[in-house]
């Protein structure tokens, strides 16, 4: 039998680190009694990858070592999780060790299913096939945009939940802006192949984005799901999700948003619901079956957009509710489904979409956020990264 911790947090991403920091801020005596299990060496500020792909930020600015972000008082177990046994309050690690807990917080993130599109893995990073969803390839996106000489520039959105649902179109708007600035827009067809039925789920922002798509003369094709990349012929194969009819699009560059799913150790565990995500209560974030288990972030089964901004509002709820149970008090904190998507519509313009459960706008600023604004772009590029590293990950914002 391995070590026992009062709280085990699975995952050292945005959700895991900020929850650990909040728990330690709320109860100093937990120092040494909170374990964060994560095999990674580095932690990434992924929201900036869109701008890295658009050549407006450096990817090195998005990376820090795990040592830098693990809060003081938390024990970092640099291992991968193999399985869960929530009935015994145990987590089995890939090195064979078993850890036990009083409370478990699942913050395991999302798994990118590169194999979900035939030929994608082999094609990525060359021949104009790029993706901002990998640290290794974000700068290749910029190379593909920068070296583009005209033709078909294709951007895709898959038929699965993705982290930051706006990212697939943000890079398209930046690329289109770049093509216009460099004088090749007239020789370029910008095509958006999206599995979604519309450009955005929330009506208020959809209205604005539909105007952006029209103004930029983007050929938006909905209910189209990318299923194959034929790198040798530079062809992308889409399937119509309603008719199942397949169509082929020639590309000169293609930015692929790959399909995503719950990590396998979550998907195949007793914690998962039918769809593979952790089955939690949408308001308390407590597991529907195991009372001492909570989940937040991308791995949680919540009917809202999977974003870092959502995590910023979920972490205090999980921390407060776990602390309440530790003190044998009733849980009071609730999550309202808040999520946000800073939709970059070009260099220096951004629509800050903020909404909650029911796709209802829930805005922070006393101005119409559906309008494209430079101030919001500056906030995303220059202020949000600082707020992330020095506020959110420290458990104070």
């Amino acid at each position: 039998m391995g070590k026992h911790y009062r709280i085990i947090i699975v995952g050292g991403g945005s959700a895991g680190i900020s929850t650990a920091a909040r728990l330690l801020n709320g109860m100093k005596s937990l120092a040494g009694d909170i374990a964060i299990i994560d095999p990674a060496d580095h932690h990434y500020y992924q929201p900036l990858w869109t701008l890295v792909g658009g050549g407006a930020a450096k990817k090195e600015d998005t990376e820090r070592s795990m040592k830098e972000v693990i809060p003081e008082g938390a024990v970092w177990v640099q291992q991968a999780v193999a399985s869960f046994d929530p009935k015994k309050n145990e987590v089995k690690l890939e090195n064979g060790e078993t850890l036990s807990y009083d409370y478990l917080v699942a913050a395991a993130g999302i798994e990118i299913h590169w194999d979900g599109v035939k030929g994608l893995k082999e094609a990525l990073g060359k021949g104009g096939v790029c993706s901002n969803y990998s640290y290794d390839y974000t700068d290749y996106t910029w190379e593909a945009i920068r070296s583009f000489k005209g033709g078909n520039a294709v951007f895709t959105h898959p038929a699965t939940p993705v982290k930051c649902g706006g990212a697939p179109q943000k890079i398209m708007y930046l690329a289109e802006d770049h093509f216009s600035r460099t004088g090749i827009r007239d020789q370029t067809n910008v095509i958006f192949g999206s599995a979604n039925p519309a450009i955005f789920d929330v009506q208020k922002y959809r209205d604005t984005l539909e105007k952006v798509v029209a103004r930029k003369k983007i050929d938006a094709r909905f209910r189209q799901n990318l299923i194959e990349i034929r790198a040798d012929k530079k062809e992308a194969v889409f399937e119509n999700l309603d008719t199942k009819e397949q169509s082929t699009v020639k590309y000169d560059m293609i930015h692929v948003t790959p399909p995503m799913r719950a990590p396998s150790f979550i998907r195949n565990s007793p914690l998962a619901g039918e769809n593979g995500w952790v089955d939690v209560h949408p308001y308390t974030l407590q597991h529907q079956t195991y009372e001492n288990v909570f989940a937040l972030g991308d791995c949680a089964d919540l009917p809202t957009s999977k974003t870092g901004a959502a995590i910023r509002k979920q972490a205090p709820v999980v921390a407060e509710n776990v602390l309440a149970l530790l003190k044998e008090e009733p849980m009071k904190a609730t999550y309202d489904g808040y999520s946000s998507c800073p939709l970059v519509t070009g260099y220096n313009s951004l629509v800050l979409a903020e909404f909650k459960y029911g796709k209802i706008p829930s805005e922070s600023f006393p101005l119409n956020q559906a309008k494209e604004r430079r101030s919001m772009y500056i906030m995303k590029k220059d202020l949000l990264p600082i707020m992330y590293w020095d506020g959110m990950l420290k458990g104070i914002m």
Partner: protein
Amino acid sequence: MAVSISKQDWVDELNKPEVQASLQKLIEKLPDLTTKIEQADHLLTFGQSVLEDERTMEKVKMKVDSINIDINTLEAALRLLEKLPLLLELMEKLETVVRFAENVLADEKSIAYLQNSVEEYTEPLREKAEKGRSLWEEVQAKAEANSQHISIFTVLKWMKDPSVQRILSYVQALIETLPKKSS
């Protein structure tokens, strides 16, 4: 109505096993009880001595007199107590701001990132200022090096220059517009 208890009643009572067990416990604890009573007695004696000691009491009185607590103080304390939930909320917000600022200042990478952003925004302004400065320096150098006499014919020659004509057309437009605006 008072109930008299006979000797026999007492004997019967003492014969009860639970009473005997209690008495036994009481006797066992007597040394401990005696010690505690002695301690309480010491304390009371000490208190009494303090009260009887005029110099000590004088000092205590001076201390009390120097504390400016009156009814206003008590009222203020009560009002502060009432406001404590709001004050706590405000303090927590302030604490967040202070801690965030502390974290940023202690984070070299964030500071470098912010500096870089500021430089990006100020670079175009700096370039413009630099351009203006070098232009002025060139003009100044040429003017100082020019020893040629400027005649009315030189001025008339300048007037043919398109840039001078453009400036003059602004002057003309200003002369025409000003009287209309001031009337």
